[in-house]
């Protein structure tokens, strides 16, 4: 693949413009559905990951930023987490650029990298702005651990860390199964879509 451009104008094609709203809406609805099913996970970055996997880092970052701005309309306390969503979008996009989702042994590595970025970016927000409490189901565990005298950073990393990894694994499975269902004739129109087509030999030369 010689054809590699990282210019913003090329990234934000017509398809990308229309995929961003879907990504944001899926973030939003995914969070809602997780709440309806009473899952202790947020699942609010599925759309961001999906958009990044198809359209690259910059479009993904835009989707992440927009989704936190939109949910900030209803619940302004999620606004500081905008950096987490932008970070997830960028990292997933760069991984897609580097062809890190093409075979099965690369998936665990990618999930680890994405989870690590999520935890590293969200820990300062939660600890410094909200004192370790995010209002979700895991907060109770964090509070109990903190009451036992554990350092606030350790308490957060120990409890939220496990659920973040679980969250990302589930998000990744959903993204990948959706992409597997999209026919190659549509996939090829997206910037990073070619990497998900199984029969690489039939691809036209770029």
């Amino acid at each position, binding site marked *: 693949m010689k054809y590699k451009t990282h210019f913003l104008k090329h990234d934000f094609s017509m*398809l990308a413009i229309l995929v961003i709203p879907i990504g944001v809406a899926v973030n*939003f609805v995914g969070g809602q559905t997780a709440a309806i*099913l009473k899952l202790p996970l947020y699942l609010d970055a599925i759309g961001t990951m999906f958009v990044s996997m198809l359209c690259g880092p910059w479009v993904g970052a835009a989707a992440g930023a927009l989704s936190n701005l939109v949910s900030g*309309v209803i619940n*302004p*306390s999620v*606004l500081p987490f905008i950096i987490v969503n932008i970070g997830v979008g960028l990292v997933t996009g760069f991984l897609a650029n580097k062809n890190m989702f093409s075979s099965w042994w690369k998936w665990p590595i990618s999930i680890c990298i994405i989870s690590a970025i999520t935890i590293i970016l969200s820990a300062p927000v939660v600890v410094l702005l*909200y004192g370790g*409490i995010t209002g979700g189901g895991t907060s109770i565990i964090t509070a109990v651990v903190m009451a036992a005298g554990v350092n606030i950073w350790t308490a957060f990393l120990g409890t939220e860390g496990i659920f973040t990894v679980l969250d990302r694994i*589930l998000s990744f499975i959903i993204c990948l199964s959706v992409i597997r269902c999209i026919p190659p004739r549509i996939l090829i129109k997206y910037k990073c879509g070619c990497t998900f087509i199984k029969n690489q030999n039939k691809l036209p030369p770029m």
Partner: protein
Amino acid sequence: METNYTEQIQIYKTNKIAALYPTAKLIIVVLYIFCTLVIGTVRITSLSLPLLLIPEFGIVVFLLIVSEISKNGYNILKDIIKFAAIIFFVQVFLIPGGRLVFRIFFLTLYEEGIRSGISLAFTLLNIAGIFIWFFQTTETKEIIRALEDSGVHYKAAYIMLSTFQMIDVLSQNSKTILNAQRARGIETDGNLLLRIKAFIPVLLPLFLTAITGVEERVLALETKGFLVECPKTHLLNVKRSGHEAYAVMVAALCTIFILAGRVMLCFLS
């Protein structure tokens, strides 16, 4: 009276404060957040608590009442207040450190905990409150129209506008799919693993139907000249009410007053 379509979709507001131009309201929001951060550094009483944040929250309540949205505003504010209360109590009772203030049975209050509890909870309430006021008095259509007027690219404006529509559509669809999958026998209650398993058959069809529709929408937009670089016509017009200058002036004066007070305190102590 007979009205045509363009007149029907215009937004009319009777309240003077709610009818301010979105950009003016945004300036007020930014100034208010700045004031909150400044006031948060003022420490009073012997425990050096940032108590002035509590009366500042009165301004948000006042704005909500004056803009005649106290009912809607309260419904949203309720959740934020609960969240802030949880943060406050966790901080007050669980953070050991500093001087012991007093002790009843098993509850112990420390200086450090009270300080950070009040600071975190009321900063959150103040900043979240002003955002609630902004988004409750302004419709998203208005915000985006004002953004486009102030120089944001029309593609970016379209992304934002279509996001809000997409959320409505997908929320509706997700409820339908959840009920349909329940009818087919997928269990949505039970232990954690069962509920996680139920999540996938709800989200997959939702995602796929949305993605397959994209191609057609690209064609539809391109045939209507979306990509043509030329001045666009707008159906919705946002009017300035004429009181923007006064409102921004009052907000700026308050900010300068608060900043001056803070600097004075520095010299006094």
